[in-house]
């Protein structure tokens, strides 16, 4: 909210802070009212002084320019050429002399304009930074002393604060409210504005009947009547005040109601009395499905939850939220009924939300206004309207306040305050601050009974008072203490620890960790998985459908992700576009799924590898990226103490999702359970996204992977006897998986086989034509009991060869 220092100064003495605005800002911020910005146009007013126009003549060589002689208090007047039209001899003006540097680094220099010397500039409000766009130059108040620096003239050198008022501090949403807060902080008095009115002899009660039918929603309703006003442009002082806090001046009546809103924090509404039917106003709940047209012409349908002000026929205002189109003030209005009320915050907020209407009025009612200022604000507004728009104030006022609001007393002891703040609080100190705050205080020893002021709706329990005391006493005076540990620390969440362990292993393997938004575009998922169920064939839970946000930022961020791969694909495309032709990324995050009307989360681990890893300067053979990925996954499984796993390639083909290459993908079975899918990116998708490098990716179910973790290593005695190696090369059908041969070899070999590796895969044109390949294994045999002799190993080898060749129909090479 914007606060004008000049306006604020009407209620509290602050002149001593004008030269030290930083300190004022610090005091407010330290009290919880954060000053976000301070705008002071006068900081650009070096060499800008008050001048008097001695002569205003025509420029000899230009019809549109004037040639002015300006007295700025020097011996000789300054000659200045000016292009404005609104000035005349005798006017006081703001003169930017040579040397001035105005807003936007606008340097004023001695110059010649159409052959005539000019020694400065007569300033407009725009050039002074007081407004955006202006016509003509600023004509100053006649009483100002010639030669005075303009920055020293209070009425022009205002400072505007942008104050961040937290929702609990509704009492500071006005200039008087802030003055009151400063009076507490600085221990100064608040000067309340006067409200002098001249009333006619005709009683208001004889002219309108106001009926409060819903006291629960509207504890207090006040009104006054003014007849014969002239709605027109506001006087300068009012217009300036309204504009200083960033509002638009509309007319004298509307401006006054806004002025009082920002002065007292009390929202007001002015009705055009002639439009009020049957001289009746009723404060009541609307009828269901009743329609109402707001000030701006929007037609809304009301419900019986909405509080309205009705005339004899229909609603004329949505209580505390917005006025009606028909009954508002217009240029033709002559008679007014001014409303000042206390509407309960819950109701105003409900109505405001239900109809999506936000106004300065409902903003304040929703946070709580002061029920004891309702009438004062009304009188102030009435007096100002009378002075700005004329008219006759009818005798008396409406004030329906059947049950004055009482604040509950709060019982508190300084012992409690001390305990919560961690230092000893003296009863006298506590009492003094509570009183300065405007509380009614009853004290007995260190026991207090405190009644909070009517404008502080946020103070209800003793903790609120503790905060008030701490805040006013200064948070800087809090000491620092490390609380003692009163019990054994508990264990970390196991998934947190597991995630950390996996991250450590993967980064150790040279991978970079990625992090993405939890929401993606609607189509991103299907591009990879076909639909929400697409991943469920591979041990990755699928939802019934994507979880949609009701109010997404954009289509690209509109559904919760059910897989990490779509995000990683985006990362890959982004990186390739930036010229990174290889990358090894992984991400660990939960995905969100919808099942049986429930929202579930599953933790996932996903990888994307693209491009060849940079090699040595002498060119090495290229590797398949998907094999590199496979090795990384297996290294991870090993690091987790994983016991057995296998890659299943055949079954993938049936349900192969569109993001995966059907002949280069395999699902992973880990300790008997399907936990994910790995493969090369489908070439069609690769083309579609214009990806140039080879891509492999994988997604695993981290929850499944975390079963029985952590596992600690189990030591096994080191072998005492040497090992013996034998190589076997088979001629096999081209599409026979190496895994099948391996399995058969293991079966045939028994426990003496301790290690087996594929060390050569060979195929030339001749073999290709035959549909065969040669695949060679290196077998390592070792016994825990003895040194194996060649003969027994050879026998075992022959046995393996026989069984493998027989079962799989292979030939040994």
């Amino acid at each position: 909210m914007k606060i004008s220092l000049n306006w604020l100064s009407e209620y509290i003495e602050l002149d001593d802070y004008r030269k030290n605005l930083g300190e004022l800002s610090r005091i407010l911020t330290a009290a919880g009212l954060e000053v976000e910005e301070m705008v002071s146009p006068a900081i650009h007013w070096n060499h800008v002084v008050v001048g008097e126009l001695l002569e205003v003549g025509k420029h000899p060589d230009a019809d549109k320019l004037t040639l002015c002689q300006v007295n700025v208090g020097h011996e000789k007047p300054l000659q200045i050429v000016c292009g404005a039209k609104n000035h005349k001899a005798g006017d006081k003006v703001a003169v930017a002399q040579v040397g001035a540097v105005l807003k936007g680094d606008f340097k004023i220099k001695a110059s010649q304009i159409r052959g005539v010397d000019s020694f400065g500039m007569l300033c407009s409000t725009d050039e002074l930074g007081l407004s955006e766009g202006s016509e003509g130059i600023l004509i100053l108040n006649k009483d100002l002393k010639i030669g005075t620096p303009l920055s020293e003239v209070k009425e022009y050198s205002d400072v505007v604060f942008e104050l961040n008022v937290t929702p609990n501090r509704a009492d500071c949403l006005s200039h008087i409210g802030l003055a009151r807060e400063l009076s507490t902080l600085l221990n100064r008095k608040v000067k309340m504005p006067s409200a002098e009115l001249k009333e006619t002899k005709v009683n208001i009660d004889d002219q309108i009947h106001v009926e409060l039918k819903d006291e629960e929603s509207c504890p207090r309703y006040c009104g006054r009547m003014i007849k014969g006003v002239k709605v027109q442009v506001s006087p300068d002082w009012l217009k300036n005040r309204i504009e200083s806090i960033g509002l638009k001046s509309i007319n004298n009546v509307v401006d006054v109601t806004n002025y009082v809103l920002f002065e007292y924090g009390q929202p007001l509404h002015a009705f055009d009395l002639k439009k009020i039917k049957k001289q009746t106003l009723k404060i009541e709940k609307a009828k269901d499905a009743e329609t109402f047209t707001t000030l701006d012409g929007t037609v809304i349908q009301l419900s019986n939850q909405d509080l309205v002000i009705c005339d004899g026929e229909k609603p004329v205002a949505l209580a505390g939220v917005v006025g009606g189109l028909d009954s508002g003030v217009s240029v033709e209005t002559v008679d007014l009924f001014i409303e000042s009320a206390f509407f309960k915050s819950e109701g105003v907020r409900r109505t405001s939300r239900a109809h999506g209407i936000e106004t300065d009025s409902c903003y304040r009612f929703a946070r709580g206004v002061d029920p004891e200022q309702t009438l004062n604000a009304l009188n102030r507004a009435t007096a100002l309207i009378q002075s700005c728009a004329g008219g006759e104030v009818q005798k008396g006022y409406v004030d329906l306040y059947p049950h004055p609001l009482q604040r509950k007393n709060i019982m508190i002891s300084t012992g409690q305050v001390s305990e919560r703040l961690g230092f000893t609080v003296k009863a006298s100190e506590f009492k003094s601050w509570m009183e300065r705050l405007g509380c009614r205080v009853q004290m007995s020893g260190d026991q207090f009974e405190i009644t909070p002021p009517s404008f502080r709706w946020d103070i209800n329990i003793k903790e609120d008072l503790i905060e008030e005391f701490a805040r006013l006493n200064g948070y800087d005076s809090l000491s620092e203490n490390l609380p003692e540990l009163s019990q054994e620390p508990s264990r970390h969440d196991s998934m947190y620890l597991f995630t950390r362990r996996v991250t450590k292993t993967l980064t150790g393997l040279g991978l970079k960790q990625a992090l993405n938004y939890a929401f993606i575009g609607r189509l991103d998922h299907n591009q990879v998985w076909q639909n929400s169920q697409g991943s469920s064939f591979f041990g990755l839970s699928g939802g019934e459908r994507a979880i949609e946000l009701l109010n997404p930022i954009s289509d690209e961020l509109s559904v919760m992700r059910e897989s990490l791969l779509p995000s990683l694909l985006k990362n890959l495309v982004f990186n390739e576009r930036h010229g990174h032709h290889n990358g090894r990324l992984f991400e660990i995050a939960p995905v969100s799924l919808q099942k049986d009307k429930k929202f579930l989360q599953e933790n996932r681990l996903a990888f994307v590898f693209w491009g060849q890893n940079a090699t040595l300067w002498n060119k090495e053979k290229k590797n398949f990226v998907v094999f590199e990925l496979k090795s990384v996954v297996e290294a991870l499984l090993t690091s987790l103490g994983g016991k057995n796993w296998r890659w299943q390639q055949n079954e993938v083909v049936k349900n192969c999702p569109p993001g995966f290459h059907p002949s280069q993908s395999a699902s992973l079975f880990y300790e008997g359970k399907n936990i994910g899918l790995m493969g090369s990116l489908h070439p069609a998708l690769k083309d579609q996204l214009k990806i140039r490098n080879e891509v492999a990716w994988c997604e695993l179910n981290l929850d499944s992977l975390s079963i029985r973790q952590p596992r600690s290593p189990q030591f096994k005695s080191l072998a005492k006897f040497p090992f013996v190696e034998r190589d076997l090369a088979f001629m096999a059908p081209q599409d026979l998986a190496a895994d099948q041969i391996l399995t058969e070899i293991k079966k045939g070999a028994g426990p003496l086989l301790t290690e087996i590796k594929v060390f050569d895969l060979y195929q030339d044109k001749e073999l290709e034509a035959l549909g065969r390949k040669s695949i060679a294994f290196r077998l390592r045999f070792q016994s825990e009991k003895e040194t194996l002799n060649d003969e027994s190993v050879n026998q075992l080898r022959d046995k393996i060869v026989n069984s493998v060749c027989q079962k799989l129909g292979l030939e040994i090479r």
Partner: protein
Amino acid sequence: MRHATAEWVEYIDQITNYGGMLVEKLEKIKGEAEKAILMAPNSDDLYQVKVQFFGKTGSLSLLMKELGSLPKEERPEFGQKLNTVRVALDEIYLEQERKLKNQELNKKLETEKLDLSLPGPDVSLGATHPIPRVIDEIVDILSRIGFSVRSGPLIETDHYNFTALNIPENHPARDMQDTFYVEQGYVLRTHTSPVQIHTMENEKPPIRVLAPGGVFRNDSDASHSPNFHQIEALLIDKKVSMSDLKGTISFFIKEFFGPEIKTRFRPSFFPFTEPSAEVDCSCPLCKGEGCKMCSQTGWVEIGGSGLVHPEVLKQAGINPEEWQGFAFGFGIERMAIIKYGINDIRLFVENDVRFLRQFES
């Protein structure tokens, strides 16, 4: 036959002066061997020389065998001679071998030169993303004073995200957070604070927990991300005070940013704490001198804190007369921005390899 006769005659000659003949032979072999050793161009040839003279069937060894055919009395003298020659040749041989080996080593050293200005093969370093990295670092610091990690779901009920945290419906505090709605009654959590409630419901005090994780706000611009991260700390114990809170945060900040960094509290408002405080620390970048990061103020805002509101304790089934608590929450992105000097929040989710590489160290 004539030939044979000539050999026979020679043989007769020999045996008549057998001793003298052997000496002569020895001298001859000595001369030849010396020459061969010194002439050997490299260590391989030198070795051949060794075999030729000293080997099993080498000439010196053969001569040795002939020793037996000398008359007994002549044997010691000749044996000594033979030995002297042997020792002398051995010396020459070793000297020559040393010389050749040395030459060869020098040559090898010269020819095996590697240009070590050439790069080695790339060894890829891994990198933890700065967000989990900051989270882990915070967890490590606060674990030391007894806090342990808890987690909660991203999609929360309205109850856990708001109501249980003393933010009833139609309360203006709901405007403080732009909420993403999933469906009636469900939201994307706007803060990690719901984990406080889950913990208090599931565990008995005293409690010291941390809840790191992703949160969501419907707000996206140069300085706001719709999905960012927070870490929440909750302590429930007896007689908890604002000075306990400030002491804990101050310890944390010194550990995280450096021992010279100061902590400042500013009054603020959060519906779930009372008293509430905004937490600032002296700017770690300029050490409080004033810079762009801290908008010349010397202080940077890092999070919110306060004593747990009694209403929140009650809602979670904890008696506020017996137990109190404090809670604080920090924005992880904010911490990373301050700690590493990152200047654009979009970098956190673009996963630009150039960005991630900066976290290899």
